[in-house]
């Protein structure tokens, strides 16, 4: 039920100068980093994560949500201006966006990207607000057996969606499972795989793992580029400013409204896929882009159509709000960035899971308002600072990366003032580099690392209740539905993949 008192409290917390300031900083940092190709926007989120230890929840989440939304949009700036997507989620924008730039309509494309992002984002935030409370009210009906089935479904989805090679998805999930069980057993207290290291008794620390896993591989890659290829490193677009002629004609309202198919389908696909664990922004934008191509009447679709930019960008940003649906209702992060946001909530003392809507109503309403409030900031700074962001791509890597490296090390140490965390961060970085090199998807590792303690606790609780009877997992209606959905999903996607492979081989 709607709690007016909680909403009032959340409203006065969010609509304050300090919160607005943190959202603003987040949006500016997010767009800036998102606009730099190679810098995934999970990196600034990982970098600002330690702040959750010292800042109150509304400031931390304002900063993180601003960074997330800004970063998701920021990737499109370089995708449109230079044909180099700042983030993988903006890759689908390149075809039409860059083609428009080459046709001298770069400003139109950039503005379309911005407005489509804000439209998709706002509508998906509204979907979140209207869906979370009903789903959250249903969540307490989930017992250990139902939750085990749900976590199994989430893990299966993320493996199925994450990669072309299911073996790599399973391997990634297996590594995540393994890292999560290091430390004391949750029920008996027995030590598992600590190898005599005292610091590991409390488990593999979450934040150093995430910081290292996402950021250190980038540092290694970029420093390698600076040393081994000095001519190519650092500058992305040779004729950045020339391409970005901001004096040209901007987007008209008529043109914006004419892309309603792309905007609508992009938002729908992005919200739907964003709410599922696994697909993320990249798959959503590609799916929306190809779905829209079936319905678009623009003959230039794929060769420089505003509708293509609208579909890809609306879908890309529509995942931002939707990713909070499984996070806030069942504690399942839908993507690796959602996992970082979940980590921040956990560090702020909010146990994300089925009871969060009931037990932490003010926090949930605060998140809703923060998500909505971040959109006008994204619009404002996206519009004002496009020329500045395009120049960010010209910061030499030799200057940028050592600075990021030192912030990473101090940020990791600052969490607990424990040098061991730096070691964990660097080990996680090496694992992350192996993932990049071997093209293993990161989603299954992060999701299984976060979900395993919940899965194990519920799984063992269910077995204790049923005295070791495994049929208990299939007795309730909810769990039966979940197991059927899991089986059908795996079957459907395996069959679809086989068909696609056969089609490609035939071609």
């Amino acid at each position, binding site marked *: 039920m709607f709690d007016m008192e909680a909403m009032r409290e959340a409203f006065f917390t969010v609509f304050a100068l300090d919160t607005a300031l943190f959202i603003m900083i987040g949006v500016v940092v997010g767009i800036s980093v998102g606009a730099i190709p190679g810098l995934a926007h999970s990196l600034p989120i990982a970098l600002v994560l330690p702040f959750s230890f010292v800042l109150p929840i509304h400031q931390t989440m304002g900063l993180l949500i601003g960074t997330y939304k800004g970063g998701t949009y920021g990737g499109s700036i370089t995708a449109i201006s230079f044909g180099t997507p700042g983030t993988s989620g903006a890759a689908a924008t390149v075809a039409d966006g860059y083609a428009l730039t080459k046709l001298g309509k770069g400003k139109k494309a950039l503005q379309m990207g911005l407005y489509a992002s804000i439209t998709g984002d706002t509508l998906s935030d509204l979907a979140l607000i209207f869906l979370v409370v009903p789903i959250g009210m249903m969540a307490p009906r989930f017992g250990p057996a139902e939750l085990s089935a749900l976590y199994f479904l989430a893990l299966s989805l993320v493996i199925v969606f994450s990669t072309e090679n299911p073996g790599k998805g399973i391997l990634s999930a297996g590594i995540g*499972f393994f890292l999560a069980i290091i430390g004391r057993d949750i029920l008996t207290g027995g030590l*598992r795989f600590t190898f005599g290291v005292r610091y590991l008794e409390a488990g593999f620390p979450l934040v150093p793992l995430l910081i290292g896993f996402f950021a250190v591989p980038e540092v290694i890659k970029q420093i390698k580029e600076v040393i081994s290829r000095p001519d190519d490193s650092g500058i992305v677009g040779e004729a950045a400013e020339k391409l970005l002629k901001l004096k040209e004609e901007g987007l008209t309202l008529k043109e914006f409204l004419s892309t309603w198919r792309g905007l609508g389908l992009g938002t729908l696909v992005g919200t739907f896929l964003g709410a599922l664990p696994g697909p993320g922004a990249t798959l959503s934008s590609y799916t929306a882009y190809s779905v829209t191509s079936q319905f678009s009447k623009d003959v230039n679709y794929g060769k420089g159509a505003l509708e293509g930019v609208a579909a890809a960008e609306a879908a890309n940003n529509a995942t931002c709000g939707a990713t909070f649906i499984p996070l806030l209702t069942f504690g399942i992060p839908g993507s690796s960035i959602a996992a970082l946001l979940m980590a921040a909530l956990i560090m702020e003392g909010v146990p994300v899971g089925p009871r969060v809507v009931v037990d932490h109503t003010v926090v949930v309403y605060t998140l809703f308002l923060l998500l909505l409030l971040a959109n006008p900031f994204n619009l404002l700074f996206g519009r004002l600072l496009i020329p500045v962001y395009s120049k960010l791509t010209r910061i030499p890597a030799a200057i940028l990366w050592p600075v990021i*490296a030192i912030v990473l090390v101090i940020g990791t140490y600052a969490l607990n003032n424990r040098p061991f965390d730096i070691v964990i961060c660097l080990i996680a970085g090496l694992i992350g580099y192996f993932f990049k090199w071997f093209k293993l998807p990161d989603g299954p590792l992060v999701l299984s690392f976060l979900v395993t303690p919940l899965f194990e606790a519920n799984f063992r609780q269910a077995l204790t209740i049923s005295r070791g009877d495994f049929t208990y997992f299939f007795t309730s209606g909810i769990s039966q539905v979940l197991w059927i959905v899991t089986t059908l999903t795996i079957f459907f996607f395996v069959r679809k993949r086989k068909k696609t492979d056969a089609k490609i081989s035939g071609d």
Partner: protein
Amino acid sequence: MITFRVTLNVKIGIMIIIVSAAAFIWTYSMPLRSMELFIPRISLGLMGLGGFLIILKDFLEPAAKIMEPKRERILPFLAGVPAAMWLYGWSFRNIGLLTSTFLFLIIWWICISIRDAKRTDSMKSVTPKILKLAALAFIITATVHLLFIELLNMYMPSTFLP
């Protein structure tokens, strides 16, 4: 049709299977209850299964479609960059945050500037460039100090240098 070919994917897959199988067997000699080892065994089983599927995919795919990881000289960087980062972590705890941050940045930038100057034959302009970078290193060091020590109140062990 299955074609047996030894690609880099296959080699890594085999290595993963061996490691996970060895760890799986090792769990039977651990002084833990079977329920405590249930999830660890699942995780090791998943890793083994993942390795097997990676191998199988390379056997089933046509040779032209196989995506192999890039073979490039990366080991020195994999060792060097984390070592440098660890060294920086050690130095700011033992030498001082300001001193080590400034030194870390300026040493790196001097090396890169001299290398670039030699490469482009512009040694004359290297001194002003280094002076500018020194000023930038100073600003970044001051920002780091303000952010982590003054604003976030991070604990730092007392050191001889600032």
